[in-house]
């Protein structure tokens, strides 16, 4: 299975977000979509998931235009974890994850659905919290519940919009390691929108860097996140260092009096 978008354009009313954008996604890979705020990263992911209708171009899933695929079938193939959940009426963690079985369910929850939910809870170390209302969870736990729900869809391709932005260091690594495992051991395609370029560098097989005119660069993290590219897209100077088995971008801050004092 393969997924791609072919020369798609999207606009909010008259404001074009991107035009003629082509991006491919491979199974077994973790792909990061990066770029400045407001450049259309989340929009691109939503176009991929058929949540937004593209203005021009086609999104393909396995050679088939995504708009021609039945909603339930699409729901069994593509998982989506939004940047922020907006639950109004609280439900238990178990019920939240069970929602992911919706594309498979008629009305009654089968034994198999329960087994899948429980194995996911177990895998994400959420079993202890199964009966807790989700509104009482911490940000990191909420994020894991959202991922668990998406996994309950048993998707081949999983999209996550900034999955680490609200998490502490520990949870960031936990979530990224899990995503890495899903790509490596289960041959799923994982697509994440990321702001943290170092995290993206460390965990991605492939990165897309979006700029003002659509796609600016793509490829392996080391080829995309170069000093020149960062300067062009983000307008800041970075220094690149190799440490602890990874490659890190360190932004160079114009030294002010205050920073000097601290250091």
């Amino acid at each position, binding site marked *: 299975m393969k997924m791609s978008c072919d020369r798609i354009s999207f606009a909010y009313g008259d404001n074009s977000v991107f035009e003629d954008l082509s991006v491919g996604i491979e199974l077994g890979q973790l792909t990061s979509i990066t770029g400045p705020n407001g450049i259309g990263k989340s929009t691109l992911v939503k176009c991929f998931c058929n949540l937004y209708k593209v203005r021009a171009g086609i999104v393909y899933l396995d050679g088939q235009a995504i708009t021609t695929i039945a*909603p339930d079938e699409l729901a069994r193939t*593509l998982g*989506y974890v939004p940047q922020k959940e907006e639950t109004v009426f*609280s439900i238990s963690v*178990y019920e939240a994850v069970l929602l992911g079985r919706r594309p498979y369910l008629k009305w009654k929850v089968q034994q198999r659905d329960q087994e899948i939910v429980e194995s996911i809870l177990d895998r994400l170390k959420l079993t202890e919290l199964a009966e807790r209302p989700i*509104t009482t969870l911490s940000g990191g736990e909420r994020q894991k519940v959202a991922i668990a729900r998406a996994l309950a869809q048993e998707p081949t391709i999983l999209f996550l919009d900034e999955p680490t932005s609200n998490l502490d260091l520990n949870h960031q690594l936990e979530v990224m390691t899990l995503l890495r495992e899903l790509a490596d051991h289960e041959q799923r395609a994982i697509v994440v929108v990321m702001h943290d370029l170092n995290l993206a560098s460390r965990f991605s097989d492939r990165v897309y860097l979006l700029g003002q005119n659509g796609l600016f660069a793509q490829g392996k993290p080391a080829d995309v996140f170069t000093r020149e590219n960062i300067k062009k897209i983000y307008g800041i100077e970075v220094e690149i260092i190799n440490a602890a088995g990874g490659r890190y971008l360190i932004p160079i801050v114009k030294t002010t009096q205050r920073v000097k004092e601290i250091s």
Partner: protein
Amino acid sequence: MKESIYAGLVARRILLLVGLLITLVLGMLYSVTLGFAEISIADVYGLILQKLTGIGDRQYSILSAGIILQIRLPRVFLAIIAGISLGTNGAIMQSLLKNPLASPYTLGISSGAACGAAVAIVAGNSLFGSTNMLHWDSWLTIIGAFAMGLLTILLINIIASLKKSGASTLILAGVALSYLFSAGISFFKYIADHEQLQQLTLWLMGGLYRAEWLDVLLLTPIMGLAVLYILRRAWDINALNAGEEVAANLGINVQRLRKQGSIVAAFLTSVVVAFTGIIGFIGLVAPHISRMIVGNDNRFLILASGLTGGIFLLLADTAARIIIDPVELPVGIITALCGAPFFLYMLLKRRREYWS
């Protein structure tokens, strides 16, 4: 050991639903024994049993039989059906609009129906005179209220289609329509004569005093179908609670769900309101009581909210019948009187578990 998480959740909720059902039945059995006419409890049940089974040859007075079989029983049933309808509609509107303050009346159905009733009362009274008040007039009011309820749904629908709308657009459209219809109601109040005004005021306060078996026969299948439809959509409504985009990713056409769901709920509300007048607070409070009892899974919540609404309206109507002997209070006064303080209490004491 593992399967017990889900099995436990479900078992607990089914037990709670059964508890609510038993409460409703007990309430019903108690309610038929109460009233101005002094008929002993033994006579009440004896009469009903005899009528149901055809066994026994005891002669009851025609008056007692009439009071129990033609006045109290249909009224008890109408209270239950109207309560169930308002309760389920409240639950589904809150979920569809993602708003804990939504009720069956949020989209302006009540104001629309009230305006229709006002037209019917004022115009109908002039047309037919007030001589056969119980029949022609009351049916005209029902038809007027129902027709205007439908018109409200149509207007909401048009507004929803004009703009690819979210929940807040629908709510605001409902507010705007309510004001529009309120102007209509005020106008008809202004031109109404004394008797018409009294009739209209009574209708606006809501009441089940005109209940007859025909009402029950008409409302039951409509309520049944609507509740079935809503239950069939329970999973979709659950998914909507996690956000519109999550729901869409789970294979749900959110726009269609919201549109169909609110049309079904609004249709049922207009039918009920046409027969009972505007009975407030049940549709708002019953879902919240139920959320506390069975949680927010709509597969259970919808039924629980219906049962709670049925119990609430049955008790309120029974109180309305007997509280000031021999005068009857409009039930809307009682539901608001009990519902409003309770709602305030919930607002102040609410816990994050129920809604955020």
